[in-house]
């Protein structure tokens, strides 16, 4: 299956990109996405367990993904 992975703010800057399409085996989880992201250049600057959202809702690493999901890796927020 294919999912969209989005990066923001300091993470996008570290990785030098704000999105990528990722192909994964059926039944893959958020944790699997994070594992793949770990291999990207600049990923060493991300924390071990970053905040993640799937389709605009915060999600746990164990959450199973579906075709076309949007997975966002969320840096520490600083709104307001």
């Amino acid at each position, binding site marked *: 299956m294919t999912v969209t992975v989005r990066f923001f703010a300091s993470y996008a800057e570290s990785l030098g990109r704000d999105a990528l399409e990722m192909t994964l085996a059926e039944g893959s989880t958020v944790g699997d996405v994070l594992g793949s992201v770990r291999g990207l250049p600049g990923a060493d600057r991300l924390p071990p367990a970053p905040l993640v959202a799937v389709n605009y809702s915060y999600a746990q690493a164990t959450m199973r993904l579906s075709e076309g999901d949007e997975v966002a890796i969320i840096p*520490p*927020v*600083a*709104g*307001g």
Partner: protein
Amino acid sequence: MMDVCISQEAIDVASLVSSVASDSNGATAVFVGTVRATNDGRAVTEIEYSAYGEMAEREMAMILTEAGARFGITDAAIHHRIGRLAVRDASIAVAVGHPHRAAALDALRYIVDETKQRAPIWKLEHYTDGAREWVNAGAKASR
């Protein structure tokens, strides 16, 4: 009336206040967050706000719904500004209307606190010495 807005436009506090007005609301509580000239002793020239728009709007709408259930609020509005903001510019304004002030003030505090913790919005601070830094990003380990 519950309303969430994330935009580059300057925040208009007066119109935000009237947007939560009603014949039965005797109390309107408002919070305005503005860019400060210093942060941790460093002189700030401007702050660049960015947001994961779709999620931030959803998260803030959920926060208003929670405030509605918890404090009996039916009229609340949040306007979060993004883009490059100068010192004293308003980055966020929240207005809550209610017949009585206690609920309006309690709901206001809840909405502002929750928004700051949950809305996927980020601050890139620019300093007078030319440096720039993501606020909170330093604390890599903490979420």
